[in-house]
Structure formats: C-alpha cells, structure tokens
C-alpha cells in the first residue's frame, strides 16, 4: 500500500494533487477493481466462528443445562 508522503495541511504541498505528491504510484484502480478476497475470507471465518459459538452457547450450554425452569 503506498504511503502518503506529505501531510495535506502542509501549505506549500497542499496545492499539489495526491498523485503529484505520490509519483511512484504505477496504476490507479477504481474502488470496485479493488477486491480484498483475503479480508473477505477472514470475515467469513469470523462469522462462522461467531455463529458456531452462539449455537454451542445457546443450545448446549444454556438449553442443555437441565434441570431448567419448567413453569
């Protein structure tokens, strides 16, 4: 990931565009061309863990913890 080389509040530099301040950028892509599949995979793994832990906590640890209140 390219690093911002200057602070945009810096007066003499603030006139320049982001590209001018970062001349080593080779290719600019649109937001939809950026496809973070790794992040997506991690997110799906986290969701699966949360869902599984919920099922375990609710159905096994809570509902399966007899004797329970029946009335």
């Amino acid at each position, binding site marked *: 990931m390219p690093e911002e080389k200057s602070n945009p509040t810096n007066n003499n530099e603030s006139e320049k565009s982001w590209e001018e301040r970062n001349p080593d950028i080779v290719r600019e892509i649109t*937001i939809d061309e950026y496809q973070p599949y790794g992040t997506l995979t991690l997110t799906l793994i986290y969701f699966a863990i949360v869902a599984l832990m919920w099922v375990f906590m609710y159905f096994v640890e809570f509902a399966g913890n007899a004797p329970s209140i*029946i009335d």
Partner: protein
Amino acid sequence: MHIHKFEQFWIKLSFVLIAFFIVTVVYGFVAMDLKVIGDHATIDPQNLADTKFGNPGVREVTRNGQTEYEVYVQTIQFAFNPGTAQPIVVPANTRVTFYITSPDVLHGFDVAGTNLNTMSIPGQVAKFTTIFPEVREYGIVCNEYCGPAHHVMEGKIKVVPKSEFDKSNLVE
C-alpha cells in the same frame, strides 16, 4: 454514496446474523419451551412472619391430583433459610416450586450447574417450578453482592429418591 460490493456483502451478512440470533431465541422460547423467571407477586419485606415465608421450608401440596412440593426460602445476610443451616430436601422426578424472597437486601439464588437461577429482591417473590431428574446434591450460591460475607453465602439442595423422601420434615 458508493459502498464496495464486499462491504455491502458483509453488512448484509451482519443483519442475517442478527436475524439468526433472534430466530434461535424465539425458537427456544416457542418450540423448545424454555422459561425464565417472571414477576409473580409482591410482598411486604417487613412482615414476612405473617406469610408462608414466616415458616420457610418444604410444603406438600396437591395440584391436579398430583403430589407436588412448594419450597419457601428466605435469603438473608448471609444464608439461605432453609438451605444453609440444613439442606433443602426434595424428591426426584417430582414437580417442585420454589418461592424466594428477601427481608433485607438483594441476593441471588443460583443452583450451581443448572438453569435454576433467580434474583431475590426485597418486596418481590420469585417463583419457579422444576423437576430434579437425578438423585444428587446441588449447591446454592448467592450471585448478587449482598454485603461483606457475600462470598460465603451458600446452601444445599439434596435430591432424594421419591421412595426415601422423609415427610416428617415438611412444614405446615
């Protein structure tokens, strides 16, 4: 505002997850018939002596032609009465209804390792019914901070076989 399609996807997934939580909780309380403590009754905590809590213990009652038991428990700083000085003795495989209240401060009544757990609030009667399926002892712990000796406030429930249940210890 343009939101990246991956981001849209996991925002939607979050809502699906929330819907899943709600569906499982509703399923538990509708299809699996899980119960929680409701609000049963209020009581004057200064005058428990005039109520069944004045003579706490296990009572035998007949409901729908069945023999059941009612247990009146006072939670006091720092004991369960009954429960601490002598265990609460109830028969297995029988409906037992607990009535719990406090004359002094907020306490908890948690039958350790089970789903039987309620607050004991001065002025409120907590009521729950259960059936103990096995013969064994359960510990009762106070799980609401009630004062300097809160950590030693504990009691016992002794579940005995129906045939060995001694009715001479019942209260009137």
